[in-house]
Structures are given as structure tokens and as C-alpha cells.
């Protein structure tokens, strides 16, 4: 787990390969992770948008929630989240949130129901690296009898993202090509037993491949041998997800932000909105009805100067109305992009904002996200 007592950074099963590839390793969520490879963040970002980028996301937490049957396991997870997991079909993935009793966000995570009937009653969770220990303790402490949380510390996770991800996968894992976005299946990749999801966090089509730690380097070397594939570090992962308008836990969402403020209403399932019964339902349903006091919005700075996390946001009269929670340069957008929270009355598209960057006022406005259109693969019916 991420909280090593001696403060030595943890490593993923691919750490030696990262160093061999010339990665610059940095501490991240208790791990030593590649922030970039020799080609650099800009080239890696653009490569992912144009071809296929390979990301090591093995630092993220993979765990199984195991119960006697799907309905029982789903109900246990529903007691901790605002998602509808009883209605989750086999082989489908949902984005959800662990919420606090006060309606804040403990973590955001992906939940998969196995497509295999023999695994009915098991949900697979993928949680943020920096929240693993907190999430696992919270879930374990709130499970009913007969349901267990089983962290899978012997698995690696890699993401292959970009418009050419599908054609690359087709060469090694033919059944992956026809998968719809947000579906998952247990498949063989050149003989390696893998759990493959068509999902990701870049705004592009792509896959996440869960594989035994011991097999992960061999699998990654096969992918990197494909001409369409380059290794991509955390730096480009961040600029890609920012352009895609996706939240980064600990920056854009945390225990003080509610799902409604964070504009994550899609994670509040219809049935759960009607029934309540999840942690923080009072605040969250109240904000849905009356509107939140503040809202996460896309922010387009004018000019070229990036507005970074922590930048103060003011209205035209100079009153502080919010703060930037993620901001930087969007290589595909071709300029600075940001997101942050503003008081609800300033959240309408087109509202002019002032960003205070190094003591100077910078004009900006509220814009729709994503900054770069999503290109997820939608299976034709």
C-alpha cells in the first residue's frame, strides 16, 4: 500500500523498464513513477492524441469486492456510493464516488461487473493510488457480513490510449477490437491471461489491461514493439485528462467537494436520486434540488499565460469568487486551459472571469468542457 512507513517510494512491477526507457522518475502518491520519457511531455501528449500511448497505472488500487451473488455485493457497494450497481449488467463498467456522510468525495473509482457468470457476486474496483489505504479501510469497515474486500496486490495495470489503440490490440487480443466503451472482458493477450477494459482517462478511445505483475513487463514490451505505441508518463497523463475535462482526485475533488458541485451528476444514478440511502444523500440531493453554492467549470484564459492550480478567481468588481483547481497548457487545445470552482451565479457559459496570476489580472471566461472532444468508441447497436 501507498503508506510505506520508512518513506521509501514504492515501485510498480514496471519500474526497471521505465528506467531502461530513460524515464525521469518522480515521487507520486508514495510511488516512484515516470513523469516523462526522453521525448518529453509535449511529444508524449501529442502521440497519445494521434497514435497510441502506453501508461503504467499499476500504482492505482485494484481490489475485488466479493459476495455470494451480484445483488448482495451490489447492495453493499450502494451503501457507500450513489451508483446503481444492481442494474449494472455483466461486463459493464461504471464510474462512481465513495461519499462521506457530509456529502464530500472520499475517492472516485471505476467499478466493473465481471462478464463471467462464474464470478457473479464479484465487483472489481480501481481506485486512486493516493487514496488506496483510506478507501480500503473505509470500505472494509462498512461491509455487511459475508462480503469481503480483497486488494489485488499481485496485479499490474497498464492503459493503452489513443486512436490507434484498437488496431494495436486487435493484433494480440482480437476480441478486444469489438468491445464497446465502458465494457470489460477476461481475454488472452498473446497467451497472457488479462482483464481488459475499454476505458481510460485521456478522452481518447483505449483500453486498460489488468495483468499479473509477473507478466506485465513481457506484455508491455510486446505493446512497445508496435510502431504505433510509445510509453507515456504522468506529465502527459495530466495534460490529457485536463483537456478531457476529467477530475483529478485531491485537486478537483476532495472530501470538501460534493458530486453536485463537481458537476459529476452523471455519477448520481436515477434510482439513487429517487431513493437516497447513500452517504451524504441529504446534502447531495438538496444541492440537486436547490442548486449548489459553487460549481466546477471549464476556464479559458485569454492570451498565452497558463493559470495553475491555486490561482484566485475574481469577478469584474474584484471580489474573489473561486479558485483554479487544475490548470496548465493544453498541447492539443493549443493554449492555456483550466478548471476550477466559481460561485454558482458566475458559472454560466461565457461569464467573464479575472484570474490573478503572479499579482496580475488575467482575463478569462467560463467555457464548456471538454477542451478537446472525447473520442470514445461507441459500439453500433
Amino acid at each position: 500500500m501507498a503508506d510505506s512507513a520508512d518513506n521509501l517510494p514504492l515501485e510498480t512491477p514496471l519500474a526497471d523498464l521505465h528506467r531502461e526507457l530513460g524515464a525521469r522518475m518522480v515521487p507520486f502518491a508514495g510511488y516512484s513513477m515516470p513523469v516523462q520519457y526522453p521525448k518529453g511531455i509535449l511529444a508524449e501528449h501529442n502521440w497519445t492524441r494521434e497514435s497510441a500511448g502506453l501508461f503504467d497505472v499499476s500504482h492505482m488500487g485494484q481490489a475485488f469486492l466479493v459476495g455470494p451473488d451480484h445483488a448482495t455485493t451490489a447492495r453493499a457497494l450502494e451503501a457507500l456510493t450513489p451508483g446503481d450497481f444492481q442494474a449494472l449488467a455483466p461486463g459493464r463498467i461504471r464510474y462512481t464516488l465513495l461519499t462521506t456522510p457530509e456529502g464530500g468525495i472520499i475517492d472516485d473509482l471505476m467499478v466493473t461487473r465481471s462478464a463471467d457468470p462464474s464470478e457473479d457476486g464479484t465487483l472489481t474496483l480501481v481506485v486512486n493510488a493516493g487514496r488506496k489505504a483510506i478507501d480500503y479501510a473505509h470500505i472494509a469497515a462498512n461491509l455487511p457480513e459475508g462480503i469481503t474486500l480483497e486488494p489485488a496486490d499481485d496485479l499490474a495495470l497498464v492503459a493503452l490510449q489513443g486512436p490507434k489503440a484498437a488496431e494495436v490490440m486487435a493484433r494480440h487480443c482480437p476480441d478486444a477490437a469489438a468491445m464497446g466503451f465502458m465494457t470489460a472482458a477476461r481475454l488472452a493477450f498473446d497467451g497472457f491471461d488479462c482483464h481488459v477494459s475499454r476505458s481510460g482517462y485521456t478522452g481518447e478511445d483505449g483500453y486498460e489491461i489488468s495483468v499479473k505483475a509477473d507478466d506485465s513487463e513481457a506484455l508491455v514490451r510486446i505493446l512497445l514493439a508496435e510502431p504505433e505505441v510509445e510509453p507515456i508518463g504522468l506529465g502527459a497523463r495530466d495534460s490529457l485528462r485536463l483537456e478531457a475535462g476529467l477530475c483529478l482526485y485531491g485537486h478537483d475533488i476532495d472530501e470538501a467537494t460534493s458530486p453536485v458541485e463537481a458537476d459529476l451528476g452523471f455519477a448520481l444514478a436515477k434510482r439513487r436520486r429517487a431513493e437516497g440511502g447513500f452517504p451524504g444523500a441529504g446534502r447531495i440531493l438538496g444541492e440537486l434540488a436547490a442548486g449548489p453554492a459553487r460549481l466546477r467549470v471549464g476556464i479559458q484564459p485569454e492570451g498565452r499565460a497558463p493559470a495553475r492550480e491555486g490561482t484566485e478567481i475574481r469577478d469584474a468588481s474584484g471580489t474573489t469568487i473561486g479558485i483554479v483547481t487544475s490548470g496548465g497548457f493544453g498541447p492539443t487545445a493549443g493554449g492555456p486551459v483550466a478548471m476550477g470552482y466559481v460561485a454558482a451565479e458566475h458559472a454560466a457559459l461565457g461569464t467573464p472571469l479575472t484570474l490573478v496570476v503572479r499579482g496580475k489580472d488575467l482575463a478569462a471566461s467560463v467555457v464548456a468542457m471538454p477542451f478537446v472532444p472525447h473520442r470514445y468508441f461507441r459500439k453500433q447497436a
Partner: protein
Amino acid sequence: MTSYFTRDHEWVRIDGDAAYVGITDYAQSQLGDVVYVELPEVGKTFAKGDDAAVVESVKAASDVYAPVSGVVVAVNGALEKSPAMINDAAETDGWFWKLTLTEPGELDGLLDEAAYRAFVETL
């Protein structure tokens, strides 16, 4: 022309009674792709060590300190249009500002090229 260097990875190249200032090739390699630069205003006076410019990569913003005291007489406006020039030519065409030295004696406290290159080897 004589060049001097700082341990913060700025260089000063003497040109008569004026000097050009920039960041070193090592600095640009550590920053990564430069996407934005904020240059000082012409006419501004800096003391050695003042925040004088900002250089931003995709990942972060970094301050550039005045390596010597002086008055800014010109800035390299081409960097604003093409910030990547700092990656491509950090110690030549990628200069940030030109200044007239007000405390030329400060140069004695800087590193010469050989000493700076040796310092970088230790990092």
C-alpha cells in the same frame, strides 16, 4: 565574449558594458518543453537575485532570477511567439533580456563556464 553562470542555471554573456541573460541548456532540459515565457519590462531595474522572468513548461512555472544587478534595455520578444526556442537554443538565440550592468563587480561572484559545467556534472 565572456560568459558567467549561476548555480540557479542562469547565464550572463558580456557585450561591452551590457550583458545578455538567459537560462542554461541544463535548465531547459530539466524544465522540459517550454510553452510560455514572461519577460521583464524594458527600463526595469533589478538587483541581483530578484525575480525577473517566468518560464513555464507544460508541467510547472519557474522563476528566472536576475544573475546580476542592472537595468533592462531590451527583451527577446521572439520568445513570446516561439517559447520552444528556449529548448532549442537556450544559450544562444534563447536569451531573455539585455541589461546594462550597475554592479559589474558582481560578476566576480559568478561561475565561469568550466566551473559551471563541472557543477552540473555533480547534479
